[in-house]
């Protein structure tokens, strides 16, 4: 019962924040609404026994990505949206579209059976060694290759950010 109440709290905050993010006129407000959303998603992760991912969520999303966003928004002095009628018109189309899509997704996903191959990481097993260790174990064995690719992706991001955003020297 406690868990259900917790879920409902987290889910409500997430959905409300998400709606605020996409409806604010001022991008700074949108970015600020993103922050509680990230924390509450981390809360959901903890409910699902994924403590390590929850921690990374807070560190990477709330700590790094959002700060970057805020930094850029402030730096560039990005204005509010000006063209209201056009936006208003579009909502009348996308809001029903979003609702229909939601109904459609839920109808399909909830009605499906999830009896996929079960893994060996039962809650008890994970509790014994700890979530971080469990992730670490698979990350450097089963997922060694994607891990290496991810490191190259970060390198590319670094190179790209410098190439694109660096002030021209000449």
């Amino acid at each position: 019962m406690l868990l259900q109440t917790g879920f409902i709290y987290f889910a409500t905050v997430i959905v409300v924040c998400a709606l605020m993010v996409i409806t604010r006129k001022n991008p700074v407000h949108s970015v600020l609404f993103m922050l509680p959303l990230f924390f509450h998603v981390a809360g959901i992760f903890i409910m699902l026994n994924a403590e390590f991912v929850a921690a990374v969520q807070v560190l990477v999303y709330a700590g790094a990505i959002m700060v970057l966003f805020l930094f850029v928004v402030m730096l560039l002095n990005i204005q509010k949206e000006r063209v209201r009628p056009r936006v208003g018109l579009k909502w009348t189309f996308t809001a029903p579209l979003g609702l229909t899509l939601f109904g459609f997704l839920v109808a399909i996903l909830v009605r499906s059976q999830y009896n996929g191959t079960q893994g060996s990481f039962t809650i008890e097993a994970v509790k014994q060694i700890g979530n971080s260790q469990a992730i670490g174990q698979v990350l450097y064995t089963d997922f060694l290759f994607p891990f290496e690719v991810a490191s190259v992706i970060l390198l590319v991001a670094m190179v790209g950010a410098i190439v694109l955003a660096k002030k021209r020297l000449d």
Partner: protein
Amino acid sequence: MVPLNWYIALSAAVFCIGVAGVLSRRNIIIIFLSIELILNSVNILLVAYSHFLNSMRGQVFVFFIMAVAAAEAAIGLAIIIALYRNKETVLTDEINLMKW
């Protein structure tokens, strides 16, 4: 115990909000944030499945998605800065995304 379907519904809701945001907003930053919403909905879904399947795969995948999201944020914001240097607006009003 919270049933899996609740998590699925939450994820679907965030996903749809993100899609609606991408399709209806014109401000680049907000479109970008909507894409982050979509990625978060995927993360919720993956962690939920991972929990109910007793598998670590989903959580590790979320880890990778976060890494990619960080890289995307860096590049996306760099592109926005480059654009800003040429033109002092970051509305997508003039940059029509859906033109064909």
